[in-house]
């Protein structure tokens, strides 16, 4: 018994402490070192954070280079698959693009109006500018859904910066380095976004499910029934983590519950936009405006003029179409009025003929009755009556000989 225990102790000691051939450190010392690093990384020491940033920079770049062959193979296979369904997608996109173009102009006008109104009601406004960033590491880990982008604190990114794919929200920055940053995707289990569900303006929080969609959580029980399938989820801006009014995804209601299908496919991200906020003071005195602001205002004005010109173009085109239609209508009206005159003349002729006929019929009736009753109405030597041709005579004839 004692010897087996001794064997166990010897084996453990050997495993922990014995340095193998060419090993520089024993396993026990490395184990202690790793535990120490875990312990230190749980605190936010500045030195640790700086060391971490340096390691991150080197590792992210190396990871990007190492991933190139695998990414090339994966992307090539995806491209081949995409080419097979290219034409159908092109047709769908074309029709969708036409619809969107018309909507976009309206949206831009509304945005510029909105900016103008915000300037009127606030002393300062938050202007945002989006910068393009490349996704350098995207390993689609099953545990943490994050990506690394090639823009960092040098470019103005900070923890909490919103990240977009086109106009759709995809996540926020959780770690910044000098020239790179880690983005926590909305699909991650640790991600929570306050959203408004439209129609109904229902407030909820969507959390990632660790796959590629989100779960609707923290919603009042009596409002669950009001959520409709295919409703749209926008960021509500509650908590100031995400900007309000950014589309996130579409609601899917089924037997499993209420889920949110994100607009963006997080596995296909290549380039993303990071929204950098600049605080800009509006000065009451226009003379004291800095050159930068003047340029900015000029840019806004130029942008508005561009939009208005586009609007004028659209209105001109519409006007032209209306004028052409108007001409057609005028010529048609002329034709119709001449037709109307002709018809009126015809009706008049017909009326005249009818009246003539009526007169002729009356005359004929008189003549017929005259033949029958003239002896009764005519004045004789010994007979009472009327002189032929007088109105009384005629009346007598028409009354069939009765005076």
């Amino acid at each position: 018994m004692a010897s087996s225990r001794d064997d166990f102790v010897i084996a453990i000691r050997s495993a922990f402490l014995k340095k193998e051939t060419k090993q520089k450190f024993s396993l026990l010392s490395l184990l202690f070192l790793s535990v120490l690093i875990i312990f230190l990384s749980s605190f936010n020491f500045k030195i640790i954070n700086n060391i971490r940033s340096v390691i991150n920079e080197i590792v992210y770049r190396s990871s990007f280079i190492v991933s190139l062959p695998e990414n090339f193979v994966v992307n090539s296979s995806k491209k081949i698959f995409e080419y097979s369904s290219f034409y159908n997608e092109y047709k769908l996109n074309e029709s969708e693009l036409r619809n969107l173009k018309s909507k976009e102009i309206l949206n831009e006008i509304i945005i510029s109006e909105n900016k103008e109104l915000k300037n009127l009601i606030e002393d300062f406004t938050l202007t945002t500018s989006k910068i393009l960033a490349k996704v350098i590491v995207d390993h689609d880990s099953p545990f943490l859904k994050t990506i690394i982008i090639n823009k960092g604190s040098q470019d103005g990114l900070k923890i909490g910066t919103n990240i977009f794919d086109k106009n759709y929200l995809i996540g926020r920055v959780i770690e910044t380095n000098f020239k790179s940053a880690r983005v926590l995707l909305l699909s991650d289990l640790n991600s929570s976004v306050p959203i408004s569900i439209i129609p109904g303006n229902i407030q909820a929080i969507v959390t990632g499910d660790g796959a590629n969609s989100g779960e609707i959580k923290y919603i009042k029980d009596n409002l669950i029934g009001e959520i409709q399938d295919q409703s749209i989820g926008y960021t509500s801006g509650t908590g100031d983590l995400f900007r309000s009014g950014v589309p996130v995804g579409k609601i899917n209601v089924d037997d499993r519950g209420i889920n949110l299908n994100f607009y963006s496919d997080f596995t296909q991200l290549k380039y993303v936009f990071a929204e950098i906020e600049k605080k800009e003071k509006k000065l009451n005195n226009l003379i004291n405006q800095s050159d930068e602001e003047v340029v900015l205002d000029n840019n806004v004005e130029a942008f508005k003029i561009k939009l208005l010109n586009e609007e004028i173009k659209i209105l001109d085109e519409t006007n032209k179409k209306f004028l052409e239609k108007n001409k057609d209508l005028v010529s048609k009206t002329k034709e119709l009025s001449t037709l109307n005159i002709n018809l009126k003349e015809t009706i008049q002729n017909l009326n005249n003929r009818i009246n003539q006929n009526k007169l002729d019929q009356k005359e004929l009736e008189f003549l017929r009755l005259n033949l029958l009753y003239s002896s009764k109405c005519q004045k004789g030597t010994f007979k009472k009556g009327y002189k032929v041709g007088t109105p009384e005579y005629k009346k007598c004839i028409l009354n069939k000989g009765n005076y």
Partner: protein
Amino acid sequence: MISFQKKNWIYKFYTWLPVLLLYISVLNEFDLNYINIQYFSFNFPFLLIFYFAIKEYSRFDFLLVFIAGLINDTVVGLPLGISSCSYILVCIFAAYLRNITIRPNLIKDWFYFLFVISLINSINYSVLFFFFSFELDIMFYVVNNFFTFLLYVPVTYFFDKYLEAIND
């Protein structure tokens, strides 16, 4: 069978291949996630470290394994030191098995490996959940554990062939 002329640069490169593979796998998270099978993933560094630690491969320096763990933490976004600790624990368990084993047996090694990775993944999950408040899906860990265990035998076959070629 492939044979090498020793001290040739190709031979030297070949001897460093496991370490190189370990670094590529941690930098690239070599786990075939992109094939989109739900929950499918495996931990290749665990397989590699366990095998070469058991075989007491001379080029397989524990310091390099430790650094690989730090890189893995940086790439995945885990708190620094978690993966290093896991990898070193795998090395310790493998070294213990090597010390107590007189006649190596693949099946015994295989089930011992299952015990080791289950234990280490449990420690990982507990540390991340309780000390760092990470929200993690335990299903991912279970499935990852299972596939890593399943792949041990085929991976061992290839590594055996590799060692045979080196010893020639």
